[in-house]
């Protein structure tokens, strides 16, 4: 019997309503096509709200030496030169216009003395470059896009999940899913689809990501035949909360260090001065005094080592903890209170500059950051890898399927700079929306083949048919998810080795077998057990891709650090790891040479070394 489902049709379907998805939807609808925007949560709750520090754009409002060229060079250096250089170029060139556009849509940024948009310092950025609103820039961005978008005629499907993409030949022509509130199946027909589903943080135990970040977009694209790239590069943000246990992993913004916060071990030593990488040495402060002057806007000072790139700072923290020099709960100390030695009104200054950090620690840890140091440690934060896309159009290797934001790969290479994510969302969200609309105009919507729809509808309800006792021991979906998270954290985390990762790969295969048998209880209305059971496939696909790529890369670079190959190896600088679904259904991996960089861009990098 044919399954029952409701059908919706749009020229462009955008999946995910964070910064990238909203920006794509706005651009597509502005191009005059009908747009459906699907999101797993309520509108405005996506993880973009968590972004704190700011949005990188070389507007040169604070330091007129800044330009897109310096931003480009910084992004490439941070990404260890395996970035998609075309994306890094477009990003650096277009970010300022995207910031100004947000202001024209109602965003209220902090100001410079002469009334322009204020910019702050951040790790890996040569000049103060992050447009911001205190430490809640992400909320400002998502709310601005949301409030602009609701007047654009975009149809929003809140609390809907997509479980499969549907194709006609090579081309993607629709999506199948369900609404979470009622559990009704839905078919979405579309001329083009934009994936903007964010990251994969939920594959790890300690993470700053919410339940939503189960790698849906990466997995949907992979199942539809698209290529994933650079999946080994997962960013562990150096400063997550470590205490109390229930808040472990929640982000502490890099803005704390941008405002003068310093990292110390249990002996009170500022350990970051001990290990400054060669390629950052001439951009790093020689002593604490110079570092402080940099945070206060002295143009002749270099940045303090706390503002080195995230991969490096995370590893230094890890090293201190492993050497027994950590804080009581397995982190290190992040101290902003010390600036009272420098500023007369320090407590007020801290509350003004870092209001949500002040509240977060006050309410969740009972700690006053204007008086005491915070305890922090690395937390899984961001996936540099994702769907391989064309730099100009954001189209994946599947015609009609686009990707933007964290779900797409390329811009950040081996390590993302803080602040480059929010700008990524709007720069490439806009491009994806524009080109998806164009594609949809040139390619009419086609009805997906009935057998594909049937298969998707069956898969949706399978966990119910299996019921609670299907797996023998009555295993629920949460147990499998927790085991995966523990394993990925321990074996494919900040420090990796061949043996651990081979064990993880085996573990993933056995979890896959168990996930295929998992059953759920209850009915279809807002049933988180069912939702989690369906998410497992995506998490496991992404975990496998991360592990396979990480085994293949026998060197240490950016977010990928191997204890058994702890140096960078130049021969690995020439390719990206690509995974895709092989003919037999198993994952195949390929080394893809990086196209030679344009001569003018190469020169920009040399000039900014």
């Amino acid at each position, binding site marked *: 019997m044919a399954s029952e489902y409701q059908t919706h049709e749009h020229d462009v379907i955008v999946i995910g309503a964070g910064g990238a998805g909203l920006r794509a939807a706005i651009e597509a609808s502005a191009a005059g096509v009908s747009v459906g925007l699907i999101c797993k949560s309520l509108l405005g709750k996506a993880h973009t709200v968590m972004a704190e520090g700011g949005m990188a754009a070389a507007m040169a409002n604070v330091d007129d030496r800044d330009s897109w060229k310096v931003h480009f060079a910084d992004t490439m250096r941070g990404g260890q030169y395996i970035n998609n250089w075309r994306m890094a170029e477009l990003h650096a060139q277009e970010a300022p216009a995207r910031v100004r556009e947000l202001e024209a849509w109602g965003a209220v*940024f902090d100001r410079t003395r002469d009334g322009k948009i204020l910019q702050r310092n951040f790790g890996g950025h040569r000049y103060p470059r992050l447009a911001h609103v205190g430490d809640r820039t992400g909320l400002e961005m998502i709310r601005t896009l949301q409030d602009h978008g609701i007047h654009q005629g975009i149809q929003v499907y809140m609390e809907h999940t997509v479980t499969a993409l549907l194709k006609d030949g090579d081309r993607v022509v629709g999506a199948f899913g369900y609404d979470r509130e009622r559990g009704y199946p839905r078919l979405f027909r579309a001329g083009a689809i934009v994936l903007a589903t964010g990251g994969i943080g939920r594959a790890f135990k300690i993470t700053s990501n919410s339940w939503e970040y189960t790698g849906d977009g990466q997995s949907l694209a992979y199942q539809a035949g698209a290529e994933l790239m650079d999946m080994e590069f997962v960013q562990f943000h150096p400063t997550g909360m470590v205490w109390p246990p229930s808040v472990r992993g929640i982000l502490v913004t890099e803005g704390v260090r941008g405002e003068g916060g310093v990292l110390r071990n249990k002996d009170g030593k500022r350990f970051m001065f001990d290990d400054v990488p060669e390629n950052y040495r001439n951009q790093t402060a020689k002593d604490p005094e110079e570092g402080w002057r940099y945070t206060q806007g002295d143009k002749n000072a270099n940045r303090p080592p706390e503002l080195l790139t995230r991969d490096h700072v995370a590893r230094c923290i890890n090293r201190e903890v492993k050497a027994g020099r950590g804080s009581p709960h397995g982190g290190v100390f992040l101290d902003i209170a010390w600036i009272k030695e420098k500023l007369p009104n320090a407590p007020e200054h801290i509350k003004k500059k870092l209001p949500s950090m002040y509240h977060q620690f006050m309410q969740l840890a009972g700690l006053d950051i204007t008086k005491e140091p915070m305890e922090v440690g690395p937390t899984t934060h961001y996936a540099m890898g994702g769907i391989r896309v064309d730099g100009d159009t954001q189209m994946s290797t599947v015609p009609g399927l686009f990707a933007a934001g964290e779900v797409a790969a390329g811009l950040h290479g081996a390590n993302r700079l803080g602040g480059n994510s929010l700008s990524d969302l709007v720069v490439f969200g806009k491009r994806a929306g524009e080109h998806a609309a164009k594609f949809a105009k040139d390619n009419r919507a086609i009805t997906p083949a009935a057998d594909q729809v049937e298969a998707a509808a069956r898969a949706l309800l399978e966990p119910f048919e299996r019921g609670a006792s299907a797996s023998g021991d009555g295993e629920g979906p949460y147990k499998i998810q927790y085991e995966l998270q523990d394993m990925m954290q321990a074996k494919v985390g900040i420090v990796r080795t061949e043996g651990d990762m081979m064990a993880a790969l085996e573990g993933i295969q056995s979890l896959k077998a168990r996930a295929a048998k998992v059953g759920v209880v209850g009915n279809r209305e807002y049933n988180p057990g069912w939702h989690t059971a369906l998410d497992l496939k995506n998490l496991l696909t992404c975990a496998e891709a991360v592990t396979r790529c990480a085994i293949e890369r026998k060197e240490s670079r950016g977010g990928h650090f191997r204890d058994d190959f702890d140096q960078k190896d130049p021969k690995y600088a020439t390719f990206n790891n690509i995974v895709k679904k092989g003919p037999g259904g198993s994952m195949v991996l390929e080394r893809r040479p990086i196209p030679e960089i344009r001569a003018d861009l190469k020169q920009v990098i040399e000039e900014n070394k």
Partner: protein
Amino acid sequence: MAKATFRIWRGDANGGEFKDYQTEAGEGMVVLDAVHAVQAEQANDLAVRWNCKAGKCGSCSAEINGMPKLMCMTRLSDLDLSQPVTIQPMQAFPKIRDLVTDVSWNFRVKKTIKKFEPRKPDAADGTWRVDQADVERPQEFRKCIECFLCQDVCHVIRDHQKTDEFIGPRFLVYTAALEMNPIDGADRVDDLKQKHGIGYCNITKCCTKVCPEHITITDNAIIPLKERVADRFYDPIKRLFRVFSGNK
């Protein structure tokens, strides 16, 4: 670790009841952790909205021991655990399942408020010049995370169901953010009186009390808007002026 009892409302639009669940109350735990523990171990299908778990997204709104709160920001150590902790969905909105309510009305209301309209740019490059002091007022309102706890506690909505005539504290704050944005040039004062029912608010300040972002909703947003409405519609000199000028 001590066990605590959580009395959680289970049910849907047709009705339901409180059920007791026991789970560990560990150090530093918040109510949402306890709900998640119950969900993972005892009731896989327990419905609850949440996202950031850090008080930034406004998803996990509920009533804890009768008080509208974010579950992720309510620490167990601040509750009396010798008694069962009751957790129920927001009462002002239609129920969907367990702790999840239908808050779609809020999204519809927002669309009825005139959107941001930038005034003429100050600089030749199309940008504006604004003092930090002037952005701080709207910035307070823009801290709003849309948890809708202020809507939940407002008696005009909760007890009198004036949802067709009154937009509620959240959207008065939203309107205030637009009206006080130094770059906005639109006028929403007529709408406040005629479409959005600002007169229904009688300043009991319950909304301010429950706001997890500590926005001074009543004093800083609603009262100044009421003053603008009063100036325009009830100032006798201005009324006379309107009579003579023919402007209503």
